[in-house]
């Protein structure tokens, strides 16, 4: 509060690279910054740096559609994200920065009875793990979101929904800045505009991180570079089963807020929320082709607009204001890849698809523990890279599937 009247720097300005850091974290997004913060806070790490090739939060952290939820299909996923939401709930206070976490509820719509069954399954998994989640019918949906078109007019009428009360939206940039500030105050060196160009290895370990600003000796390395993780992995000789796709989103001009809940329809490939600024924020599913090219497509705008109007015809004359794209790293089973790799001290956080931002705090906690103790926390054991060698996948695919 007092910073309102006495502005204080959020973080030190960029300094020189030190000769050595115990932990070098590649990627200054929410995952990297959270990991740095928890390393310093929980494990007393003194020598940690973040290398970010652009500005902090320039990648997926600042481009996602800010939805936080934990109603996943697999028990592994739900338990993991459940913990993440619990951490998010406490985070504004802990970091003394209002992340504007708005838990006004999250509705995943079902437009077919097949989709209802998938919702039912998710609700049952969630309930067993203590996550608030239930299947609701049109009447309850109408009470939660009277503005939604629940008539028979749409081609795909709404039959029901998975209601997840703790789900909601958060101010994504604030998460990045709050973690950055907290990490910086605990001595983490943040180096924006510092790009990793290579890793030197000996005896199966990374010993030196090369950057465009010079070399750093390192104890451990964490790569939290969503969108570019395969490229950074390649530099370390770690092959990842990842394809990179773009995801597009747009906002409208601000309207007086009336939509309180987050509405998701995988049948229509859209999710819709209204920010505290009054803009409607509408995102699509991942584009089916792989690319690093960040230009959007007109067909995305057309399809997403059409589908949004199936849900909210009253937005017909609302104007689209701004569009953007982000990169998503997709794993074969739609679950993340988190933890150790075959290079002894090279850890990854990748394969997040569209779910990475929701996991930032728990990734920070668990990766920090792994890096500090060398032991993989139980919560993230199912997400090890090794599962693709043992073929024990954690399938979130059915939850992502449209219908059958």
């Amino acid at each position, binding site marked *: *509060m007092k*910073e*309102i009247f006495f502005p204080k720097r959020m973080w030190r300005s960029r300094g020189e690279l030190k000769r050595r850091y115990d932990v070098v974290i590649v990627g200054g997004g929410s995952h990297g910054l959270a990991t740095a913060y928890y390393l310093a806070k929980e494990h007393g790490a003194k020598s940690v740096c973040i290398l970010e090739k*652009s*500005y902090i939060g320039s990648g997926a952290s600042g481009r996602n559609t800010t939805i936080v939820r934990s109603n996943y299909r697999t028990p592994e996923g739900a338990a993991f994200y459940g913990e993440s939401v619990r951490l998010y709930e*406490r985070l504004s*206070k802990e970091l003394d*920065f*209002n992340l*504007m976490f*708005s838990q006004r509820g999250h509705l995943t719509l079902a*437009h077919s*009875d097949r989709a209802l*069954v*998938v*919702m*039912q399954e998710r609700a*049952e*998994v969630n*309930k*067993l793990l203590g996550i608030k989640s239930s*299947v609701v019918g049109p009447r309850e949906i109408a009470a939660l979101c009277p*503005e939604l*078109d629940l008539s028979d007019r749409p*081609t795909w009428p709404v039959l029901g929904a998975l209601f997840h009360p703790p789900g909601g939206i958060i*101010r994504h*940039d604030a998460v990045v*800045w709050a973690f950055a500030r907290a990490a910086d105050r605990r001595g983490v060196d943040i180096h924006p505009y510092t790009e990793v160009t290579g890793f030197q290895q000996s005896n199966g370990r990374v010993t030196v991180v090369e950057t465009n600003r010079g070399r750093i000796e390192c104890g451990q390395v964490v790569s939290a570079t969503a969108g570019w993780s395969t490229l950074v992995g390649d530099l370390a000789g770690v092959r990842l089963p990842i394809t990179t796709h773009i995801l597009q989103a747009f906002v409208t*001009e*601000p*309207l*007086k*807020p*009336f939509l309180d809940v987050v509405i998701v329809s995988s049948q229509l490939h859209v999710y819709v929320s209204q920010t*505290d*600024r*009054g803009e409607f924020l509408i995102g699509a599913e991942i584009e089916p082709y792989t690319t690093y090219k960040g230009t959007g*497509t*007109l067909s995305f*705008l*057309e399809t997403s*607009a*059409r589908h949004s*109007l199936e849900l909210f015809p*009253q*937005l*017909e*004359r*609302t*104007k*689209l204001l*701004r*569009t*953007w794209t982000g990169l998503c790293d997709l794993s074969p*089973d739609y679950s993340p890849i988190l933890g150790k790799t075959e290079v002894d001290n090279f850890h990854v956080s990748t394969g997040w698809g569209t779910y990475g931002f929701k996991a930032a705090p728990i990734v920070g906690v668990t990766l920090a523990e792994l890096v500090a103790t060398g032991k993989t926390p139980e919560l993230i054991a199912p997400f090890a890279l090794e599962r693709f060698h043992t*073929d024990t*996948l954690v*399938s979130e695919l059915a939850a992502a599937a449209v*219908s*059958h």
Partner: protein
Amino acid sequence: MRLPAQPGELIDRAEPLGFRLGEYRLEGFRGDTIGSALFANGRRVFSRSFKYHRPRGLLCCSGHCPNCMMTVDGVPNVRVCVEPLREGAVVTPQNVLGRLDMDFLSVVDKFGGPFTPVGFYYRTMIRPRFMWPVYEKFLRGVAGLGRLDEHAGHSRRYDVEHRRARVLVIGGGQAGRAAALAAATAGPGVVLVDESVRLADVELPGVEVLAPARALGIWEGKLVPVDSGTVLYRYRAERIIVATGTVEQPLVFPGNDLAGVMLPEAARRLIRDFSLRPGQRAIVLAADERAPEIAETLREAGVAVPRVVDLREGARQLEAHGRRGHVRRVVVDGEETKCDLVVVSGGRQPAYSLLSQAGGRVEYDESLKVFVPRDLPAGIEAVGSVTGEGIVRAEGAAAYEGSGKCFVCICEDVTTKDVKRSIEEGFDSIELSKRYTTVTMGPCQGKLCQLPSIHLYAHELHTYEATIGTTTARPPWAPVELGLLAGRHLEPTRRTSLHFRHEELGARMMWAGPWKRPYAYGEHPEDEVRTVHESLGVIDVSTLGKLLVEGPEAAQLLERLYPNRFADLKAGRIRYGVLTSDGGRIMDDGTVARLADDLYYVTTTSTGADAVTAWFEWWNAVWGYDAEIVNVTGALAALNLAGPRSRDALQRLTEDELSADEFRYLDAKHIEVAGVPCLALRIGFVGELGYELHFPSSAAEYLWDRLLADGARPFGLEPQRILRLEKGHVIVGQDTDSESNLLSAGMPWLPKMDKDDFVGKFALEHFAERDERELLVGFTMEDDVVPAEGAQIVVEGQPAGRVTSARRSEQVGAVIGLGWLPRDRADAGTRFEVRVDRRLVGARVHHGAFFDSAGERMRS
């Protein structure tokens, strides 16, 4: 109020139009915009600003800025300065608590300053945590601009029209018109698009003029969508010439947002287009060469211009002061002048957005002090001032010192103080600062604030604009209605040839993948189940995917695609097949009938036809077999006639022999039924004697009617699901998911591991070596409760498996189902618990079919 008729004025004084502003009835003329009509009626305040609720008036009069956004006929955020006046239009102000000239929320402006610096919301309302929802509710109450009628439905027809152009010229100024005319000399196909209504009547020989209309962006493939109101013209052009000119930039100085501070174009449009005097007493402040020209225009309109300041002549201190939000006086270097109009010119910034979206580079031109486009992609050109041509360097466009709020971004109410503070706090790159202050993120999308904010960053960081760079220009160039982008909103729906018969019979239709199918025909699906068990039912299974695989190597192709054998299948016989992915996971299933040595007839699931066709074609291309794959799904209707009476009933309609010896279980035969040639497959998905008839879809209604007339009762998808569950049959995609394989899903007998190779063999070998964690098995509930599909199977309080199918079966006399169980609990008879409505209910594992396990009925 109006000036004498100006040459070329847009208004038709002979045709007055009445409209309303709140409770007031006002009048304008045809040709007016709502904005000009309001101005003519003496209105100067049009809106209240986003954060501080400061009164705002016409600034650009070109549809860029947010100052004139009002609600018109229920549609919020309409820029009334460019919205044509209509008879009876109802205009209401927005983002106002009270009246436009008395907004209670303007307390934020008067007293809130110290409490609401940039990013204040990040620093406050944190404790206590439980109060945040209350704070947020308040924040949301004051956020946003216009209010939408939340329950309005579709009101407009939007359409999309695809067009082609040899040369598309965007912008109808001098340069654009000249380029269009030049292009037209080389032949037809030249189109010129311009936003101005003035261009609508311009005749350019050989050029098609589209105006008023707006090019929204340039996408890959030289795709340019053009907004013309309710039709979106999607142009594909061979060559694009961008002549979008420049955007006039405001000056940054304290008080620069007061009503009465206007850009030159705004003053010019009021005078020239609408014959309105923009003020009585004006001061001209210009950072470029245009001061004399502006003053001249004003004087010609009868405006007194006591002071004309060319800011290039030296650093100046500027301040504007007002009363109730209207400008009243301007202080230049301590010298005060009274006025009611300040025309400001901060120079002109090339409108490069379209070029940048198209892939052009944008760089800062040190000599012009603006951003200019460079390195345009092939086939995209720029002409006129958008290139920087003819632009005079502006100096002194910013005077940051002085008292009062000094806005760098009027959309978002971002002041110079906010930007300075963000830099002090460490948001020291343009992108970070943009995200923190929200500068350039409002309705003008940077048109009026991008350049001034970059100048400010450069100033504060003591660096060059070129080092700071610019944020990315993204489409659309101007906000566009979602309805226009959406176009028509119908979605393709697949209907079988019997769709309308089902509706006539009162079936409840449901979506099944891309198809509409009958759920059931009556209230009680179990009645339809009983009919099938006891007499004769018929179900429309036309949605099954149907493929022909033909050629000398068709057998080899299928042999390698499927885990089981098809090369040894005899002509006229049928075998069940499951397709697996190369990862060994179950993809799809169906029956395969061999019709001849080199011809197979393959069915897939209802949603699988396209994917299986693509899968077959892909592998066929890889292996290079001599076989053709033809998707004939829509060519054929399919009916499954099932029940103990099916043989007799069908026999009455055909002369072909159907006896059990002649037509055995799993035979495929050509028969003619009631004059319709059919491929009849004797298969038993629902567990009773049955025939699946495949025949030309054109004859579907006829044959259906004949079967019904003969006593067959239709049954829907729901009864079919119960019937197949009684047989323990798996539905791919319901009982299996993307990780299921044949070994875990209860079909270890299916893959023939001694085959040389098949898709997924390597993975299946691997699965065979390790133990499956969970298995798909049948179960019978101990109590008469039906668990939800998706219900959790619980072991020691933890989720250990899940129910994938469950139904009450009269035939079995119990609730039965399929589900995934841990391997060590999957033996027949093992008891486990299922969570049903918060309690745990016992169930026992059951292997195989739940009745008639030997399959005597379907083989009878």
